[in-house]
């Protein structure tokens, strides 16, 4: 499956079908991650099961130091 994650075109293995799989694939901290799928911000409590499709545009952000 091909997607754009944080502005980068990436090719993902077939077993990556949900947001949970995606976060696991990139070994990202699930507690910190905030996910936007095709410009729709996902609720943290339900987002892990959100299904991914070919061509999805995903943003994964977090809190960082700032004033």
């Amino acid at each position, binding site marked *: 499956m091909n997607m754009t994650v944080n502005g980068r075109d990436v090719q993902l293995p077939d077993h990556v079908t949900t947001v949970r799989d995606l976060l696991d694939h*990139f070994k990202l901290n699930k507690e910190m991650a905030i*996910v936007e799928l095709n410009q729709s911000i996902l609720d943290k409590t339900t987002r892990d099961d959100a299904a991914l499709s070919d061509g999805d545009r995903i943003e994964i952000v977090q*809190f960082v130091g*700032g*004033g």
Partner: protein
Amino acid sequence: MLNIGPYSFKSRLLLGTGKFPNFDIQKEAVEKSESEILTFAVRRMNIFEPNQPNFLEKIDVKNYTLLPNTAGAKTAEEAVRIAKLAKASGLCDMIKVEVIGCDKTLLPDPIETLKASEMLLEEGFIVLPYTSDDVLLAKRLEDLGCHAIMPGASPIGTGLGIINPLNIRYIIEQSSVPVIVDAGIGVPSDAAKAMELGADGVLLNTAVSGANDPVRMAEAMKYGVLAGRAGFEAGRIPKKMHAAASSPLEGMSVL
């Protein structure tokens, strides 16, 4: 107590979390500052470099109220998107509206700040806009329903202190919501000065994170805020044009 929307805080010092030398120093500085509100920015995770440490993992988040900012936004729509991303963290519902209109001065765009604040209030956020020291703009933001007004002392990161204390004072006098002087603070006396003018709080970052000893400066800022607030509450003497002796004029012993 500093009351913002439904929240109450003992500390009137709000601390930014950017540009500290390392997390250990940052953690100690946060502790010494006794701040209860910490600001953050929202940025992309690096998907190709996972497991990078995050300061939020170093602190007990439940002991703090997080105040994410919309830094990086240049339009109201961008600010609203960042605010919604921040809220989706499930960690907070306060937002520091920060819409920068000029890359050189980092001064806020008044029109976009006003628009973003209005949109975020409609969305149910606790809204704290970072604004210039424009008195009428501050009034317009308050009239919208903003929960606090955060005028800059001077441009972000300059450490120039309060450039226009008269405007800050006007903003404080007219405001029925908390006024938090945000940006441009350089030294503890700047923070004290803001509080002496009657500010409800001070938000600073670089003055602490960029100091030679951020931990000591964090503590110094805490005292600056405390001293300024106590001075404001005590009520200063009027300024006079001529001297007035503090020792008795009568009863001098003469040889």
